[in-house]
């Protein structure tokens, strides 16, 4: 049986680092050149903005997945720790 070792403080640190990332990604600007008088420029920037948008969506999804994964890890650790009552850091997986 493989073992999982995780340090609570490390997990908390990682969680803290990840926390603002989703918000930062969501704040991704959506550049537009509407009204600039040039359809070519508007179109080129719209295509660029579409890419940013798709990447932002993907990044948001990935941040959420990492957070979820981390949360599950911490939960398992906490459960094992509680059951052993020893503050153990070794839990079966």
């Amino acid at each position, binding site marked *: 049986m493989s073992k999982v070792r995780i340090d609570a403080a*490390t997990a908390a*640190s990682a969680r803290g680092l990840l926390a603002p990332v989703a918000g930062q990604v969501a704040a991704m600007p959506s550049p537009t*050149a509407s009204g600039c008088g040039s359809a070519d420029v508007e179109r080129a920037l719209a295509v660029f903005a579409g890419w940013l948008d798709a990447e932002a969506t993907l990044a948001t999804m990935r941040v959420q*997945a990492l957070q979820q994964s981390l949360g599950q890890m911490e939960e398992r650790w906490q459960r094992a720790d509680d059951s052993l009552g020893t503050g153990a850091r070794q839990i079966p997986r």
Partner: protein
Amino acid sequence: MSLQWTPGRPGRGSMGDVTSSAMALRSFVPTATSAAGAVTQASAALAAGWEAQSAATWATRGEALAQSLGRFAQPAASVAAALDTYAAAVADIQTREQALLSQAASARVALQRATGAEATARAANGAMSDSWWDARSAVRSAEAGMDAVEAQLSALAGSRAQADADAVATITAATPADWTALHASTGGGPFVAHGGSLALLSGSWTSAWGPDAIAASSLRWMLSQMDDAEAAQYLEDNPAAAALVMTPTNLAKDPRFAAVAAAAAGPGGVDQVAAVSAAFAAMSAADRAALVRMHPWFVGNLDGAPFADRVEANKTSIRAALYQAGRDETRLLAERAKLEERMPKPGQPISGARGGWADYGTMRRYGEIATELAGAQALQEQYQELLTGKVDTFVDGRPRTITGHQVLLFDPEGSRFAEIVGSIDATSTNVGVLVGGTGTNLANADGMYDRAHTFVEQARGKLAMITYQGGEMPQTLTQAVSSSYARDIAPGLRDFVAGTRFETGAPVTVAGHSYGGSVVGAAEGAGMVADRILHIESAGAGPGVDGPADYAAPDTPRYSMTAPGDPIAHIQGVEIGSWGHGADPDELGGVVRLETGRADHHDTSSPLLQGLPSHSDVLNKGSTSWINMYNVFTGGEVMLYAEPRLVDGVWTPGGYVEEYELPMTDPTYVPPTANVP
């Protein structure tokens, strides 16, 4: 569409959005860099404090995220700079344009005045008078002034065109070329406001957006960037997304896929299949993977595409169908709930229940909904099984259970379905394609699977089977008289088999049971080439077929079996117009007729396969017929048919009656054999 600049108004346009976009992009650069750094730090921290198999996955995904965040910074900075430059250039043009327009107005007034003075001079003193010459000179001077202004405006328009081109070039260079091509291929439609694709995550986007170009582009891009597990999970969590990527696009506009799109364009045929196969072979692995992810609608049923790609693409196709069936169920449940409010209550007379006869319509619809609901639920169950069912197969010759069926053809609307039973890989020494008979449909595809699996199981993976339904099959014996189904399916089977032969170097046997025999014969007539052909209780050698010369490859080894007393014998060899299925396959020139024998070949006391039940029982594992099929599929030794033996002849009041005995009724009889090449 806002007003566009023109040669006469090269400065037209507002730079408000341009400058604010530049500012937003510039300020986002450090944010993106910081976010990427945070993720990298988090990954490093966890890598140091986490020991588990999943740690590697976490680190890989964290790194992928950090990289994608890092990818924003440089293009964002580049575009911000380009927008600033553009705004400045246009502002300068606008300033100069204002001055020129003012000069133009003055010049226009001067010209009007000079023209008026010229007319006055001509009227007063004649056309060649001194005053006229003076006035004329003033006109020319004013005209020169106008020309100068127009020339400067024209130069300004050139500057504007250059500013546009520079901005477009920089923005385009900052945009991944693959994204640009992808968007062009999906129609290049307008983009919705930022944040729209974030709704992809909530699953609410379909109602908000509909299947528009940006949703399709964003989704395809995201899928192309994900790893296999991520993409599978995403599509599982977002079945609506699967439906969206099933929307056809114009692949010719994406340079990565233009060649394969061109190869696939056409009415079909073996040459086209070869061209598709070659086009796939010429693609990079990354482009192939992207094609499968982004355009499953194109790959899933494409003959000539690698089977692994087709299977993968069809998973998405099945997810889309599952999603649609779920929506149908939801809609029907809502409709039923509404109708239930109008249904007569217990004890209430039907005709008296609010509306009299109208309620009979309500009740009728209520009954229809029950049927439709059952259908939608059955479809969901079937599709779910195709996606998540545990399937026994062989990988590299070893038994293994995999999740999900290996579907090569999935088109519920066209009644088309094919799946691999077993696995087609380097250890496959033979491949069989089994075409079912009358009554075959998507709902009983599992029965076809079970039949095919008996052969695969026996061969322990060295034989792979493919169950094939290439279109609507007759569901009744009355329908089965017509050869139209076989004719319709034939070209598809021809191309499918061609694709199969490009997939594997192993000999390919194409077998048709009952009506499926006619389909196989029709496909041979349409140009299908296989390594072996097997007719099983076959309806005929194919519509219009008189002999092997009517086939594309007359010398192909052919085998046929028909159990004694199977009623199919009554229609074999009978053909009138579109009724019937060509020559009797048992008597076709060059065909090797096989023994159908006993229900259990190795039990000499077991009954012979004969009569109506034998039509299907020949496919039961362990029977003489099944063993013969197996040996045709695997290139083994087959048992040959022998004519019944005359055992007695007696005179009766009705005449002389000969009594025959099937050789296999003799438990000691050993049929002659032949090797299958």
